């Protein structure tokens, strides 16, 4: 068989019979080529979409939930309903100690402030933050550093500003680090410029100052705006949310079933929704792709069947001249596999071009909708292998049909 495959005559036969029937060969190849092309383009686009979602969430610990205080909706232990609830710094510590599966608990504060630098000013969100924030929501710093423990301990008047604020308050290429900006008539030294986290969500106007400094200038005491709780990957963030809220209700003497006392946003849950959507899309992609492939394989089978029908007489002659049924079948199958393989490879190549085109059109820049649209080469070759195997099997049907006709009947056919 190996010798057969490397025999020049084998390929001469394949070439002859294919080049003699250019239209038929062409149509078959288009069927397979289209199937592979579609599979690659679809899988690539799906992967690109997945990548772009991952990038949007990329720097965020997705197993997170945000919790903030609202008003109670049920009277409890002598308290009226409608009581304002605010989170305290001590709560964060309690949650960290008592709720199972906690990775980090990050207390945060936020306020709107007018920021002035020389003759320029703007209204921005000022956040009181711990260095720990960097762990939950990775800060990419273009210049300088993020807040550290030293800043917290010494209530330093330092600030990390976002790229967008830098662009608004500073000249192009102007040095920002060490410069001053004024908030509430207090001068802050700029220690870092952070990159905009997610271009899809518009420009960021965040300023980070040390938590303790924030407490001081806004006279916040122990009160905190909201908590960011991150769970360990193996724990369910939903359960952590429930547990943390229950604990908070206990600490604040709130009815255990008071749903409104604390508001929350479960990032993990939202993320799971998108992941589910992506999984669904991937399934659909595979389904469509494989269906197309199968359609392609049937196209091959169909064409081969016609081929055999057309060549009944030729096959009869060949058998009269001493071709064994095995030799006839082998020839037909080799033709089928060769066609499939060539068309499949062409499909892979042009599929690659499509992915390049997709990348050029939608994959450039920070706000790309399809990031790095690509397919794994393994997947592609498995698809091709399946195609070849199915092509062979389907090629066997006409091959058997061809040899089941007695040579005499084949020859009699005019």
């Amino acid at each position, binding site marked *: 068989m190996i010798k057969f495959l490397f025999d*020049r*005559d084998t390929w001469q036969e394949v070439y*002859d*019979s294919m080049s*003699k029937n250019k239209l038929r060969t062409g149509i078959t190849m288009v069927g397979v080529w289209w199937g592979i092309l579609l599979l690659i383009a679809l899988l690539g686009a799906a992967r690109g979409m997945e990548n772009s979602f991952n990038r949007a969430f990329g720097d965020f610990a997705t197993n997170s939930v945000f919790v903030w205080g609202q008003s109670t909706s049920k009277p409890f232990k002598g308290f009226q309903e409608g009581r304002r609830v605010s989170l305290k710094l001590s709560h964060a510590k309690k949650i960290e100690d008592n709720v199972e599966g906690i990775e980090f608990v990050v207390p945060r504060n936020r306020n709107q402030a007018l920021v002035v630098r020389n003759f320029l000013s703007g209204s921005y969100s000022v956040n009181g933050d711990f260095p720990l924030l960097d762990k939950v929501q990775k800060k990419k710093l273009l210049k300088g550093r993020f807040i550290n423990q030293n800043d917290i301990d010494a209530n330093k008047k330092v600030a990390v500003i976002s790229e967008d604020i830098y662009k608004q308050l500073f000249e192009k290429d102007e040095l920002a680090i060490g410069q001053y900006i004024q908030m509430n008539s207090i001068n802050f030294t700029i220690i870092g410029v952070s990159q905009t986290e997610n271009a899809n969500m518009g420009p960021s106007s965040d300023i980070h100052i040390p938590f303790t400094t924030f407490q001081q200038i806004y006279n916040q005491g122990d009160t905190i705006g909201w908590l960011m709780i991150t769970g360990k990957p193996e724990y369910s963030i939903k359960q952590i949310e429930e547990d943390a809220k229950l604990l908070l209700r206990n600490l604040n003497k709130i009815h255990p079933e008071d749903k409104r006392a604390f508001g929350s946003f479960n990032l993990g849950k939202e993320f799971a929704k998108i992941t589910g959507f992506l999984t669904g899309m991937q399934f659909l992609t595979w389904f469509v792709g494989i269906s197309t492939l199968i359609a392609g394989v049937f196209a091959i089978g169909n064409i081969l069947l016609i081929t055999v029908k057309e060549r009944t*007489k*030729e096959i*009869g*002659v*060949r*058998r*009269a*001249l*001493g*071709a*064994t*049924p*095995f*030799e006839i079948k082998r020839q037909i199958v080799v033709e089928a596999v060769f066609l499939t393989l060539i068309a499949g490879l062409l499909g892979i190549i042009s599929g690659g071009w499509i992915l390049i085109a997709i990348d050029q059109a939608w994959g450039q820049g920070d706000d790309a909708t399809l990031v790095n649209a690509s397919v794994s080469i393994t997947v592609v070759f498995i698809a091709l292998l399946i195609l070849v195997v199915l092509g062979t099997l389907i090629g066997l049907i006409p091959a058997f049909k061809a*040899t089941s006709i*007695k*040579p*005499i009947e084949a*020859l009699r056919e*005019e």
Partner: protein
Amino acid sequence: MLEIKKLHKSYAIGDSSLHVLKGIDLSVAQGEMVAIMGSSGSGKSTLLNIIGMLDEADEGDYILDDVPIKNLTEKKAAIYRNKFLGFIFQSFNLINYKNALENVGLPLYYQGLKRKERQEKARFHLKKVGLLDWATHLPSELSGGQKQRVAIARALASDPKLLLADEPTGALDTTTSYDIMAFLQQLNDEGKTILIVTHEEDIAAMCKRIVRLRDGVIMEDKKVTQVRAETHV
């Protein structure tokens, strides 16, 4: 070299069966040139197909060159066909996308001969039929007579014991027919055994023996004085 005893063959047509050959006894010696004649439906084509191992008899014996031909698998039949028999058809049955040389080389390809050897042999046989200059031409570029010559060269390529010709001149005009017959006679003179199925008396007269079939039995089997085809050309 060819022995046929009490050969029967029926075809199923719907529910009934048609008894085509009703006990044929035929014996052909080395170097004979036999014409099998009969009107259509007499069973002559069926007989030729059985001799050609393209079809199998229901009953009776068929011995070719001391080899009993019975219960052959398709594979074995193919090998025997290749080794023992050369076919010449009325409609030539050349493969239309292969040139003359490749057509002649086809039986050798199925013998498993190397390309070079095959081409050499094919060239030799093509030369024998006088068409070496046409080696690279496709069948569509050849005349009917030339096509039949290529077909004869192809039948000779595997050096068979027996040449089987099914109406070899049926699709040719008289002059070309005689031309082909002259060539077949020449081959016979060289010692080839040839069996020709025909319904033309003049063609049959050019053989050395005429076997007449009617309704599945041999009516007449006589040796004749061969009419040389050259005299007509």
